[in-house]
Every structure is written in C-alpha cells, then in structure tokens.
C-alpha cells in the first residue's frame, strides 16, 4: 500500500487536510453533526495526538482520514486530493481487537500482503521479519487467543506496519491495557516510528500518552466536536523515556494547559458539553424534518 503514495520526499503537500469540515453520520438519527468546522493540517512525518472527552468526535476524524466516512460539509484532502473511495496507504489500529482468531500471528501479519497478491513465500518472509521486529519472532505459529493483550496489540501494529502505510491511524490502541503495559507499548511505538517519515494520528483519552508520543496535541471539545486548541510540543525533550519526559518542566506546562482546556469542556458526567451553536442548528433541522422539509446541513 505504501507504494501507492504519490507523496515524494520534499513535496509540500500535507498528508491530511481538513478545511471547515462538518461530518454527519448517515442514517435517520443523523440530524446533529458529529463534528463541525474542523480545520487541521498534518504534514508528512508528523505525529499528531487527538485528545478530548467522550463524544467529541475524535474517532470520527480518523474515519474521515481513512475514507470510511465522507464529509458532509467543507473539504477533506488526503495527499492533496479528494478521494471518492477508501484512501490508499492507510494503516488503522483500533482499541477493539481486529485480529482474525483463526489465523496465527504469521497469518495475521501476512494478511494485508496476501490481499495485495504477494506470493506466499515472500509474504511469509516479510511477515516473519515484521513479527520479529515487534518482538514476536518466537510466536509465529500461535493463535491470538494464546497471546497477552500487549502481544495482540503488537500483532495488530505489525499487521498495520508491514504494508509501509503512508498514514497510520490509531484509535485508543492501548486503552484496554494496564498502566505498565501501556507505557511499554508507548515506548515500543516510539521506537518503531521515530526516524521514519510515517505520518500518525493517534486518538487517546490519556493526556500523558498524548504528550509522550505526539509532536503536537489537538484538543477537541463540544458535542458536536470541534478543535479547541492545538498545542505544539516542540519544547519537550525528545529521545528520552516516557518516565524522564514526564519529569521535564515543559511537560508540566503543556499538561496543565491541555487539562484546563479539556476540563473546561466537560459535563458533570465526564462527557463533552453540547455545542450551543450547533445545538440550535440541530434543533432547527429536527423541526424542519418534522415538517417534512429539508433541514439545514
């Protein structure tokens, strides 16, 4: 999939571009949008973390990036153009496990290569190399049920990276792991991605995870969601362990700033506060639908 990318080194075309994007999910209950007026540009090689309360549309952004969901308003460009179909060169890792239980570690990692029609020997060689690089070289013939949560996530990551994707989308990939394993997986991910030109958008609830991994943190707010703040993390020390990173003064400053933004947009139940402007638009649309007329979009 990576060879599909028209983005050559040195070009200025961003990998991802949201311009005034609004997204409504298709279906009957789609009167209220999921996100509104999203503007975001992600250049090549950037690691962007998206944080925000539940229901603010973080995962919706990833769906748009993958092409699984089309925008309802505004403009979305991937590699400089709008696509009618699914976007090529996407690697998508979700919190929910998407390994095939009937395939071994090797079979799971080799799956995307098999789909591209790569000969069996070649794809198994590449998959075995990838398995070794995610630390599962001795587990090639094991089934997912025989692996721990962290190992399964590494298989997912291996399956995603084996195709050399242009854009890596990660939707709370470590959300189900315990604290220690989560830090280990963060270190592992950093070691895999640092030094490459892989562009990554990483959704998380965890501020420390976002500050540890990201080059910048996008804070979303409201329901429907919009981007409230973009925090560039250029002053954070790089090439240090997550534990050391968290002890730096700059880390505390960013954390406090982001926390203030997110906490200010939370309801008492811990979910995103309604966006009053869009609420009005939604009400209007509902009224219009009830009267059998076309609602605002």
């Amino acid at each position: 999939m990576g060879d599909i990318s028209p983005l050559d080194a040195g070009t200025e075309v961003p990998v991802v571009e949201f311009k005034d994007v609004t997204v409504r999910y298709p279906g009957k209950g789609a009167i209220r949008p999921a996100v509104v007026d999203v503007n975001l540009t992600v250049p090549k090689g950037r690691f962007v973390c998206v944080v925000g309360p539940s229901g603010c549309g973080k995962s919706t952004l990833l769906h748009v990036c993958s092409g699984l969901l089309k925008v309802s308003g505004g403009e979305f460009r991937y590699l400089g153009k709008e696509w009618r179909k699914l976007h090529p060169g996407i690697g998508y890792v979700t919190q929910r496990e998407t390994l095939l239980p009937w395939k071994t570690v090797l079979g799971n990692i080799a799956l995307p290569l098999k789909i591209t029609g790569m000969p069996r020997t070649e794809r198994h060689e590449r998959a075995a190399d990838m398995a070794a690089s995610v630390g599962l070289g001795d587990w090639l013939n094991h089934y997912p049920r025989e692996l721990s949560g962290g190992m399964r996530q590494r298989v997912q990551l291996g399956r995603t990276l084996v195709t050399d994707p242009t854009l890596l989308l990660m939707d709370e990939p470590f959300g189900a792991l315990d604290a220690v394993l989560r830090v280990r997986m963060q270190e592992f991910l950093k070691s895999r991605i640092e030094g490459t030109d892989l562009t990554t958008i990483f959704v998380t609830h965890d501020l420390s995870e976002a500050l540890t991994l990201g080059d910048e943190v996008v804070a979303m707010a409201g329901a429907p969601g919009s981007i409230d703040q973009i925090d560039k993390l250029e002053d954070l020390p790089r090439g240090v362990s997550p534990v050391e990173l968290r002890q730096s003064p700059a880390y505390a400053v960013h954390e406090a700033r982001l926390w203030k933004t997110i906490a200010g947009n939370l309801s008492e139940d811990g979910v995103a506060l309604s966006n009053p402007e869009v609420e009005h638009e939604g009400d209007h649309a509902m009224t219009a639908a009830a009267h059998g007329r076309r609602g605002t979009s």
Partner: protein
Amino acid sequence: MTTGTVAPKSASSAAFDTAALRERNQRERWLDLLRIWAIRIAVVVAFCSAWQFASGRIFPVFIVSSPTTVVERFGEFMEGGELLSHLAYTMQACGLGFAIGALIGSTLGLLFGIYESISRVIAPFAAMLYSMPKIMLSPLIVVWVGVDLTMKVFVAAFSCMWVIFYNVWNATRRIDHNLLDQFRLMGANQRQIIVGLYLPSATTWLLTSLRVAFPVALIGAVVGEFVASSQGLGHLALDSGQRYDSAGVIVAVLTITLSAMTIDSVLAAIQRKVALWQGEGARG
C-alpha cells in the same frame, strides 16, 4: 512460632515434582473416567434387568418386548442382511438430503447475510419457513416428486436446510464490522472478503448447525419412509409395529439412534479440529 530457613529445591527435585504431579493428575483423570463409565454401565444393566423382569410379569410382552427378544430379533435381522440393507437405504436418503440441505442452506445463508438489503426483505419469510413444521409438507412432496428415494432425500433436505440457513445467515449478518473495515482498508475485493472473512467467521456456526441439522435430516428421511416406502429403517419400524412386533421396532430405533450418534461424533471431531483457534486460554 518457629522460624527457620527453607532450603531451596534443586532443579532436579522441582522437575521430579512436576512429573509426579502430572502423573498423579493423569491417574486421577483415568480413575474419574472409569468411575463415570462404571456408573453408566450399571444404569444400563439395571434398566435392562428391570425391563427383563417387568416384561411378561407387569406388562404384556407384545407391548414392551424384552432385552433378550430384542437381541434375538437383532440377530434375525442381521442374518439375512435385512437390517444393513434398511440402514443403507435410510442413510443414503438422509446423507444425500443432509448434503444438499447443507449446501443450499449455507450458500443462501451466506448470500443473504452479506447483502443487507436482501436480508431485510426476506427476514419475515425466513422466520416463517424456519418455524413451519416442514414434515407436514411430505404429502405434497409425494405429489411433486413421487414416492421413491428422491422423495425421502427431498424431505430430509428441506427439513434440515432451514436450520443451517438460519444459523449461517445470523452469523453472517453479525459479522464484526471492525474486521470488515480492516479488510476494506487493506484493499480486499468482495471475493477476498467472502473467502477471508465471512466464510471463516461463519464456520463455527455452520459446524454447530450441521450437528443440529443432521438429526433433523434423519427425521425427514424416516418420515419420508413412513409416508411411502418399502425400504429403510422407518419402513422396518412401521412394518414391525403393524405386526405388533415391538422388538422389531426397538431394533430399528436403536440402530438409527446408534448410527446418528456415530455421525454426530464424527461431526464433533471435525468441529474440534476445524475450530482449533477457538476456546479459552488467553494470556490476559
């Protein structure tokens, strides 16, 4: 309270302990199995003894027969190859019907499950056909295809295909959409999605439904023989019953039951083999 140091066990001692423990567990498992089988055999022996005692003393012989008469009748049926011939006929009708029903049921289940729009249209019809006692259509099937083997195959196939269809259809409709999205993002075409995702996902349900469907197909074949036949275990049971030969009926019923159990064990073994990736044992 006393305190003291505990000497660390040597590696060979630990290995010995593990081996001894494994051996003890194995021995306990065998003993447990032996106990269960001893109880089972005792139940059968007690039942047969009570039956033998009651036969002719409490109940008339022509109604309940007796174990010794059943064994005698079994011998008679086997002597001329009569029983095996009837068994072969019933199994032929059932096997063919089961294979046809499984093929049609799983194919339709898969297709209808994949295409959501078809599913929405056919849902009430599928529920109606699933609930309908298909056996009741046997007289109509006689009108359509006659009374020979085809009729029994038809009844068996029509009876069992809905069980398989319904299971595969539901399994396919409930496919994990996250997995489907992954396949699509990997660039899989429809054929790759069906072969790589839908078919393996439906396998567990298919194998379970096959085990449920086989006895249904057998009932279909036997009912077909009841309706009109001069061969098969259904015919043998019906014919024996009409002659007040209870032992003959019991021999036919036992033969068909044991055959069904054998085939079920084969299907269970296949299920275990194919679904090796299933089960508990995740490392957390």
